């Protein structure tokens, strides 16, 4: 990933996919696609929990469910702009974080997505952040286990 952090308040992630732009665009907008990838590793996003009202001011809601313990992380956002098949912008009123997804046609049926997140400081409270912290705490516990020379005791159940 060609990532960079140009500003403390802004984060950028990019990735290229072997798929035509309008298909990639629809994946980021349609629940029947989002359900397949929205949750990171160890998290699923049940189709029934995804709300998409694809117009400015429309709702974008997801619930990520931990495969391990069933804990749920709700994201509530509102679409700001939808320009098919180039750009999707949503903002999370709870945190003020705005996420701008830009879709670039790379030719040969390849597409690059750039995710730009602005207003990051408050976003540390977001469900994604919480979900992330839960897993990072697990990993931290694992790391501590290694440091203290625990033998084979790597199955540390870190509670989120």
């Amino acid at each position: 990933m060609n990532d960079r952090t140009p500003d403390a308040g802004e984060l950028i992630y990019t990735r290229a996919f072997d798929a035509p732009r309008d298909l990639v665009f629809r994946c980021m907008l349609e629940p029947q696609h989002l359900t397949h990838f929205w949750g990171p590793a160890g998290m699923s996003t049940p189709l029934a929990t995804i709300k998409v009202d694809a117009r400015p001011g429309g709702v974008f809601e997801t619930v990520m469910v931990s495969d391990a313990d069933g804990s749920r992380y709700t994201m509530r956002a509102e679409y700001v702009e939808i320009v098919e098949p180039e750009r999707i912008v949503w903002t999370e009123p709870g945190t003020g974080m705005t996420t701008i997804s830009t879709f670039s046609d790379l030719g040969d049926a390849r597409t690059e997505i750039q995710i730009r997140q602005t207003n990051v400081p408050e976003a540390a409270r977001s469900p994604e952040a919480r979900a992330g912290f839960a897993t990072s705490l697990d990993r931290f516990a694992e790391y501590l286990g290694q440091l203290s020379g625990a033998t084979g005791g790597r199955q540390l159940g870190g509670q989120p």
Partner: protein
Amino acid sequence: MTVAEDRLDATFTALADPTRRAIVAHLARGDATVNELAAPFDMSLPGISKHLKVLERCGLISRTRRAQFRPCHLEGEVLDAAVGWIEENRRIWKERFDKLDEHLRTIQRAPSRPRRGKADE
């Protein structure tokens, strides 16, 4: 977790300023006095002091009570927490994109996709 989140919030706000980031970068190399920190900037001592107070308030730096020199010290753990959040956020998008990549391969392989770009497989 709320206290930690508030602290993290304050840390991000503190780091949103380029001068304060430069101060943090300087202190990452070792403790320094206010005078030493002010040297590279075209800024008055009170101006630098104001930035140091913001950094101190969120716990990013600490100052010893010793006399007027009071060297500033970077609290690495607090910085790590902020960096940790960014790393976690990056990880979530990475894993999300890994899954999207897989999903795109799956649906493009499936014959029942009427609107796909290329049929060569």
